[in-house]
């Protein structure tokens, strides 16, 4: 494949396709598509080498709105299709898009394996804790008690946390953000892209029609400071309006607690420093739930390792060097043959 960088810098809008966007007015997906376009522009991504692969759902409509290559596949299977795209042409920049139903309900297994194998793609999970496209049934990320058309008396099964799941799948890049956080999202995408191997990004997305406000306790402007903690490697895990709160390990226990600097003798030195290479820490951070804890944002875990696609091609090169291809005619003649005259 003849991969070149694009001749002129493209603006975010240049990454938008000519197709009319068909999400509900006010849907969080609008912000995400903008963020991705901005990220691509920042990185100078080449549209012809960029591929968006999605499953089915509102989120999965995403590829239609990008002026790149795109494949809107079937429900749950985007990671599998993307695996084939990337393995066929590792020079392509492959993004996988799906909702919480797409990637954690029907597609959970493919999400597991694309992460475990560490295929060099970016997996963006738009989590609105609901099935949007099929009109509002609860999803595997919905909170217990969610009333929905299929759970009129409230759901009774406990949800899975997307990031905790990803960590259990051996994912090596796990991050989280919010749909409308346009300040942060493009940068996060860029980090995801720059990470070698599978990058998992959970984007908390508001479904205005079926699950409006599900995150407002920590995403509404007034609640952000107290409701979110931003993970930055090597920096203390501080939050609050004045950065007056922080996370620390409960002394003598392997447990996080929220403390306030200046109270009970807590000083900034007590605050936990984020170590993005520590998986158990990441598990704790990813699992934090409101209202007792702030929700962890940013790069929660990053510990890059060799990507599967690179390893596959390295092995191909190695094997080819060891015993290069001979013409098929000769190949078929190798081994025991006999001649009839």
């Amino acid at each position: 494949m003849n991969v070149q960088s694009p001749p002129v810098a493209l603006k975010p809008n240049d990454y938008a396709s000519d197709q009319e966007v068909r999400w509900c007015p006010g849907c969080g997906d609008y912000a995400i598509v903008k963020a991705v376009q901005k990220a691509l522009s920042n990185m100078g991504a080449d549209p012809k080498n960029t591929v968006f692969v999605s499953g089915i759902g509102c989120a999965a409509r995403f590829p239609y709105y990008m002026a790149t290559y795109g494949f809107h596949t079937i429900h749950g299977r985007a990671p599998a299709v993307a695996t084939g795209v990337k393995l066929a042409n590792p020079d392509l920049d492959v993004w996988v898009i799906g909702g919480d139903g797409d990637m954690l309900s029907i597609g959970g297994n493919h999400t597991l394996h694309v992460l475990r194998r560490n295929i060099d793609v970016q997996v963006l999970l738009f989590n609105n804790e609901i099935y949007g496209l099929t009109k509002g049934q609860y999803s595997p990320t919905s909170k217990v008690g969610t009333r929905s058309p299929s759970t009129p008396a409230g759901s009774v099964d406990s949800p899975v946390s997307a990031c905790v799941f990803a960590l259990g799948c051996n994912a090596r890049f796990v991050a989280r953000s919010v749909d409308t956080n346009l300040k942060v999202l493009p940068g996060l995408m860029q980090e995801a892209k720059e990470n070698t191997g599978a990058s998992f990004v959970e984007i908390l997305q508001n479904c205005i029609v079926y699950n409006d406000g599900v995150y407002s306790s920590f995403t509404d402007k007034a609640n952000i400071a107290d409701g979110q903690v931003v993970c930055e490697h090597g920096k203390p895990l501080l939050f609050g309006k004045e950065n007056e709160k922080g996370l620390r390990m409960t002394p003598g226990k392997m447990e996080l607690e929220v403390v306030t600097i200046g109270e009970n003798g807590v000083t900034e030195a007590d605050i936990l420093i984020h170590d993005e290479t520590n998986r158990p820490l990441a598990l704790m951070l990813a699992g934090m739930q409101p209202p007792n804890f702030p929700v962890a944002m940013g790069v929660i875990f990053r510990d890059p390792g060799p990507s599967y696609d690179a390893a596959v091609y390295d092995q191909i090169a190695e094997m080819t060097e060891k015993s290069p291809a001979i013409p098929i005619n000769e190949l078929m003649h190798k081994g025991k043959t006999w001649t009839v005259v």
Partner: protein
Amino acid sequence: MPTNLIGTMATQLKETDESGREILDSVVIRFAGDSGDGMQLTGTQFTQSTALMGNDLSTFPDFPAEIRAPVGTTYGVSAFQINFASHAIKTPGDAPDVLVAMNPAALKVHLKDLVPGGTLILNLGAFNARNIEKAGYKESPLEDNTLDSYRVIEIDISKMTLAAVEHIDVTQKEALRAKNLWTLGLMCWMYDRDRQPTIDWLNQRFGKLPLIAEANIAALNAGHAFGETAELPSEISTYVVPKAKVEPGIYRAVTGVETTCWGLLTGAQKAGLNIFFGSYPITPASPLLHSLSNLKAYGVVTFQAEDEISAVCSALGASYAGSLGITSSSGPGVALKSEALGLAVVTELPLIIVNFQRAGPSTGLPTKTEQSDLYQSVYGRNGDTPMPVIAASTASDCYDCAIEAVRLATKYMTPVMFLNEGFLANAAEPWKLPDTDDVEPFPVEFASETEGFHPYLRDEKTLARNWAIPGTEGLEHRIGGIEKDYDSGNISYDSDNHHKMTKVRAQKILGIADDIPEQEVVSGNNSGKMVVVGWGSTFGAIEQATRRCQEDGLDVSHIHIRYIWPLARNLGELLKGFDKILVPEMNNGQLVTLLRSEYLVPAESLAQITGQPFKVSDLEREIRSRMED
């Protein structure tokens, strides 16, 4: 099912050659023993030698689903049958002339198939009370009249083997494991097969364990020497089966897996594409994954997916990106792929699905063969979702079908279902090596013209859409499973457009009928009293049975269908020229349904659903009886 008739015995000319060996026209030998006894290996080595001797041959390996069932049980018995002859043959033979039974369980399972008067070679060493009971015999079959009508050779092969390798420093267990080679040695003596290929193979195989190699070779030679020197019953003589007269050329013994593998590789080269092979292990399809995994130097990417859905989806993704996406499985796995196959049809991407059929439904009998996925191939998807289906008849045909599958998939931008069978995958036959240069290249041209481009632009003649792959400047586009507009390739919910697109998809596939050969008659007249119509691996048995009837003066022809969908354009005409149409299938009647609905011909089913290939004699009897109806 057809009652078990006594198989046809090899014609014994009772002529002898210069060294006093009795000359036989053909022989069927079956090796049977515990799964751990190495019967498949014995059979394979005997096949190699036989092939190198220039006989025509056909084999039928038949092994249990258990990896290594407990010793001595009937369900742990593994068997390998070979039919070899001095003339062209097409089946592994109805019934063995010689049965080698390495233990009582093997005898119990297989004796019923041995022809009356046939030769039975028994490993006495395994006929202890415990094994006899395990096999389900009340009394020792050696001591009652069970074996009365056979020529029995009882040898304590275990003891002989131990003695033969005594001088080599291996454990008793390792020594005993060589008893299959002792047996092979004896059979090589009896049928005048060369031991050298086996010796070479052993030396190579156990390169790092020279003592094991030595022990095996010693056993092989000892078995041979035993034949030469021992006092065998007088009726037992040595035989020779002269070379078969076959087309000149270079030959090798192959299974359908090998030829499928090479055919796909050849096809990909002719198309100018790299192969991406996504698969999930399943019996009997896994060997294709294994074979292709060794071809990395050919740019073949093999991907063992987490399941069949991922396997087909990754292959489709690879096709989207410009590779030749291939996936393979068996019935249950193909069922799982059905939803994704719909996506392949609607996105009109090339894709090959190789289905090594096995006995179903559900898990069924995984190691037995069957032809029962034809319905699934032709009809088994939601919506109006047509795709070409082709079926191979022999190991060598697998090669040609594989190339043809690639040609159709790339030329028509469509998934192609390639129906293979467990029997073809495992059975070996001699194959005249083809020259890849004889295959006309059919290079793929990716779209590059941006002017007027849209992803569903069609070739006027083939109706195939153009194939624009990521990485191509200016052709950025989006495809997917939602209906697309005929004129722009964008999503379209328009009613009339959906009708038009459904029709064009169907038309494109039907149009392939103009690009495939007209249907020919394999043997017999182009019209007449009866035609036997088959497909897949039953080719040989049907041809042999029809021939026998023809030789007897019966007006019966044989048609073999390779293109299951679309059917050959002249097939209807042809079929209408016969009074009776008999369709033998190893299923409960599937192709017959297709022929009836397409041509309104009164085709009749002959169903055998035993997980076993047809016997020529059963077919012949059935043809005769139906002709009289």
